[in-house]
């Protein structure tokens, strides 16, 4: 089985330096693109590959790039941003890529930047990823040294400056327009669309924001072709995917597997099944802001459309597993505490609604809940839905809550009835 994204990553060992990376075929794609491909051709290949954004929304990457204004009339400079603000609870996939193979990301960024003819690129890095920052800074320096960055890259007329920017640390910075505001030095509040970042992004110029994993796929697509990439997948969405598992499984971890690998296979073969003495209860397939799936969904394939059909989202593909010895109310309360704290405070439903749900959940968990609280929670799950809030933070926060109310209603009611947490 091919594992293009992680083939260079050796746990416990330092990331490959530029020479090692080049030995494994690194920067061949940049050479190929700059010498043989026009930006439009490069975008075309990525479109053909069916690469979809790995940040959670799954938007087709090539299409996204194609919205950037090209040619003489485009506002300059244009920007490419790697979203490395990985703060979704349960997600640690980008961290592995950042720490394990920084040049793979840099190469992907050069290619993406070339495709949209960007003059500058930023890696917007989560504040806590200190190791990744060190690794990246070293790699970026090497890349400049080798002439893959800066003026006249590989003797072509193309130039690109790349900067590592460390976030001040808010979840909302991971939302692409909130990220752009933060990068501009403004409050990290999302922007309304239209205009989309592709046309008016960083400092009002055409900008592409892509997730780290998305960008890391690009060198392999350019080197091996779109068809090769499509075939890596078991389903229609191209490529491999980094899947993770956390919770009380035997081997929590991260694996690169074909896109569309069934949940059961990830859970049982790779994560080794549940620890002894606990039983599987449910899982969040793609991080904290996705709906719970249960036993009945274990054969669902982990790709964008299959998980959606099952009533959740692939999200980041890093699963959080709930077991029967853990209180689901407590788990959801913990998640909502996170979301309430991370609300940027811009729009009313999110700013005020999330803390309210968090307080209700806290009361239920503490044995002070009332039956009417469940209606209040359900109401919030509905009223904080998509389109009603300014961005997707609150709707995402409601996904685990609404599915918990569906699958664990009896647990909520027991808390209220028994005036205590049955797990405590």
């Amino acid at each position, binding site marked *: 089985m091919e594992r293009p994204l992680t083939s260079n990553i050796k746990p416990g060992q330092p990331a490959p330096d530029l020479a090692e990376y080049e030995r494994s075929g690194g920067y061949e794609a940049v050479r190929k693109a700059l010498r043989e491909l026009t930006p439009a051709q490069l975008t075309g290949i990525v479109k053909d590959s069916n690469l979809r954004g790995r940040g959670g929304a799954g938007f087709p990457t090539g299409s996204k790039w194609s919205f950037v204004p090209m040619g003489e009339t485009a506002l300059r400079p244009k920007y490419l941003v790697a979203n490395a603000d990985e703060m979704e609870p349960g997600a640690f996939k980008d961290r592995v890529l950042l720490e394990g193979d920084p040049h793979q990301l840099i190469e992907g960024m050069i290619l993406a930047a070339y495709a949209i003819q960007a003059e500058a690129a930023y890696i917007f890095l989560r504040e806590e990823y200190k190791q990744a920052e060190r690794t990246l800074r070293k790699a970026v320096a090497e890349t400049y040294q080798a002439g893959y960055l800066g003026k006249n890259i590989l003797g072509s007329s193309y130039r690109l400056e790349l900067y590592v920017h460390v976030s001040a640390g808010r979840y909302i910075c991971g939302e692409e327009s909130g990220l752009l505001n933060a990068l501009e030095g403004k409050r990290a509040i999302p*922007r309304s669309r239209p*205009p989309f970042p592709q046309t008016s992004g960083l400092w009002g110029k055409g900008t592409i924001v892509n997730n780290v994993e998305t960008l890391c796929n690009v060198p392999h697509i350019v080197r091996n072709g779109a068809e090769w990439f499509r075939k890596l997948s078991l389903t229609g969405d191209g490529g491999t995917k980094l899947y993770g598992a956390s919770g009380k499984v035997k081997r929590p971890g991260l694996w690169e597997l074909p896109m569309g690998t069934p949940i059961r296979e990830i859970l049982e073969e790779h994560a080794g099944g549940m620890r002894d003495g606990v039983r599987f209860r449910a899982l969040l397939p793609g991080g904290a802001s996705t709906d719970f799936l249960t036993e009945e969904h274990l054969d669902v394939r982990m790709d964008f459309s299959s998980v959606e059909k099952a009533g959740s989202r692939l999200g980041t593909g890093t699963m959080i597993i709930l077991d029967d010895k853990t209180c689901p109310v407590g788990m959801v309360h913990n998640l909502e505490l996170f979301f309430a704290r991370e609300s940027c405070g811009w729009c009313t439903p999110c700013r005020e609604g999330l803390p309210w749900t968090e307080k209700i959940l806290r009361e239920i968990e503490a044995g002070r809940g009332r039956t009417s609280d469940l209606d209040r929670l359900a109401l919030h799950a509905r009223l904080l839905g998509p389109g009603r809030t300014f961005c997707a933070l609150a709707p995402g926060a409601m996904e685990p809550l609404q599915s918990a109310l569906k699958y664990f209603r009896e647990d909520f009611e027991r808390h209220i009835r028994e005036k205590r947490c049955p797990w405590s």
Partner: protein
Amino acid sequence: MAVIYIDNRPYTVKDGQNLLQACLGLGFDVPYFCWHPALGSVGACRQCAVKQFKDEHDTRGKIVMSCMTPAADGVRISIDDPEVREFRASVIEWMMINHPHDCPVCDEGGECHLQDMTVMTGHVHREYNFPKRTFRNQNLGPLVNHEMNRCIHCYRCVRFYRQYAGGRDFDALAAHDHVYFGRSEDGVLENEFSGNLVEVCPTGVFTDKTLKRHYSRKWDLQTAPSICVHCGLGCNTIAGSRYGQLRRIRNRYNGEVNGYFLCDRGRYGYEFVTGDSRIEQPLARPERSAALERVARGEALQRAASFLRDRGRVIGIGSPRASLEANYALRRLVGPDRFYLGVSTEDYRMTAAALKILQAGPARSPSLKEVRMADAALVLGEDVTNTAPVLALALRQLVHPKADAAAKTFDLPSWSDAAIRELVQDEKESLFLATPAHTKLEDAACQTYHAAPDNLARLGFAVAHRIDPASPAVPDLAEEVDRLAEEIAAALVSAKRPLIVSGTGCCSEAMLQAAANVAWALCRRGNPALLSLVLPEANSIGLGLMGGGDLQSAFQALREERADTVVVLENDLYRRESAAAVDAALQLAKHVILIDHTRHAMAEKADLILPAATFAEESGTLVNSEGRAQRYYQVLLPKASVQPSWRWLGLLNEPASGTADEELFKLDGILADIAGELPQFRPILEIAPPSGFRMMGQKVPRQSPRSSGRTAIDAKENVSEPKPPEDPDSPLAFSMEGDEGLPPPALIPRFWAPGWNSDQAVNKFQAEIGGALRSGDPGKRLIEPQVGAQPDFFQTVPTVFEPHDGRLLLVPLYHIFGSEPLSALSRGIAELTSGRYVALHPADAAAQKIAEGDTVQLELDGISLELPVKIAASLPPGVAGLPSGLPGMEHVALPSWCTVTTILQTPPLAPPQNGEGVGGGVGAQS
């Protein structure tokens, strides 16, 4: 035009609006918070949700924010859909979970947009049973009160303060449900427009701190349309009174003038009306050397009559801060030949020059709305932030060429505030400032130039010459100034609506002429240039249009013994000419009659003082810098003997009519006389309906229909209900009885509509939201440009400013708080008024080893002043700055050459303050 469907009915609306504007304009009640017609849409509060449908078959629809959705042709929405109503009620509920519900003790209560919107959405019951969030409040200075716990986080305050008004010391701090709107630490809000937070805030976070000292609910105020008297812009205000006391000033929307906003001097300068310096009784001296004594009204009139017996020996000195009516009444009393304008020779010359330029030239004096719509501007010589503050606010809103272009490229509507700001970034608008020293507008300008007044004028002439070589060339122009002139000329020529701003601030006629040349050169090229000339006082233009001699001519009449009796109208001559000159002249007068409302130095020289009404106690007319005549109305009954100056003067004019029959002297009568005698004022009859105007047979009530009505306040004297006072001068009644329909725009006493108790009710008074008032914005222009006129360019270009050996050119610097005498008597403004100082350039100071804080002696024209020094790096070398008109400062005719000698050196203690701390720049509040 677009047809939109609201709950299945078609409506035609103007293109380019969002759904919220369109719905409000059609009269629908859609609740909102974060949207503001002057600030645009950002979609933060989620209150204005409506349901949008794809087509007539779509029954599900989706919830959208009406402020963020274009009212495009064919759009179908529902306001009444149950799901969206539930959502809107929930938004209120969320806001209210942390709101303290302290309405009974909140100053906003009764005019609170949050209250109105809560009722509008139908939200009545909340199940939130957790502790409320609490914040620590800040002391933001003497004008604005802060109560953060009431905040519903609509972000309007910070958007107004930072983005609209250019403030930097106030921000949104912290995150999630702890976002805090305030300063990084307690302290006076630095921005001159901070008082607008009181109106911009939809609830009681920001309230009027001056009102707090004499609080009344909105519904208990008598309110009347008024005009601000604290500068020449004539911003429209609503004055509110209760129990014979002026309680507050609020903004009165006039789309052509101030729009939605006032400056802090205009909002908070009103307390002089109830101040300790008021003259409330006639005062007279039994003999020249005796002290002033109270006299009865009848006796006062008799004395006046005896002083005025020989009319041929009487001269009248008018005032640019008094109404047109009062000045006219004085002019009629003494005769046109013996009527003087009461301004210094310099002011007289400047006003005359400004008027001539506006009357003879093709360039139009713009309304403030036209200023906001200009797309390039040159400010020549004027520190507008301190001399005409709301003009500075308007200049911050110039149409940004980039915003225009970006909006077109990205098909963005003009109300899409955040998206347009993102595209514009920090790129400055085409605003060029040329002033003697640093001004606070500079952060908005693309280029600034500091120079001596003559050099500023030279820049103006150079710009004009660049635009039209037929205008005079400027010899010996420094290369960098020439480059700047070229840049300015290019920006003005390429603008669609170029604007030139100048004024009397530098007392430089050459400056006005240079400004005129630039505007006229543009007009000759076919660019419809606007020319805004700032005049200092509320009725400077009105007085200029009336005509009369300057103060020195009046003094000369006394010296030449052509007169021996002087009637001074609402004027402190000691602010106009040097004390020595005024003393010498008044010495020659046998009788001095002063008619004024506020005590000042002139009182010591008056033999008889008649207590005049302030703007709040009389009705009258003022002409602003644009040339717009505007009516203001009495809002409270003056104390017993106080009456409008024009009525006193009418009584003096007709002693035969005795002391009782005031009916003869009504506003309508004097207006008719003015219009009949002076054709330039004929339009003043049309600016508002005459006193006999009735709606459905009734007057327009000054009290709201919700007034508490009678109280026991006078019960100790009389328990029977007194008849409401009569108002013979206007169609307004001192009563809650009257017609509640929409009055003509000049008569709107308050903005109120059923369900809209806050000032947001103004929506209901506009035909198009953010546009003109229904039936048109009030006021009539008295000056129109000569379309197609090609007056000769002014030819006299000043020579390059040369610093004189050992002497400095002293120029005036202005302070929004302090330079205008009436507002400076108000408590809040007085607290913010700068101390006296002289500002020196660092090189000039160093040459004499003078340091910041040293006391120096200033010698000029026989006047000697002792002042502490401020070092101002932005002043040109060889130029020193003297704050204009601060309380306690002697009058000095400026510009003038002076010498500076040190008399007291301070030990080097505090490091120098901000080097730019001169004028109202920063120093005013330090």
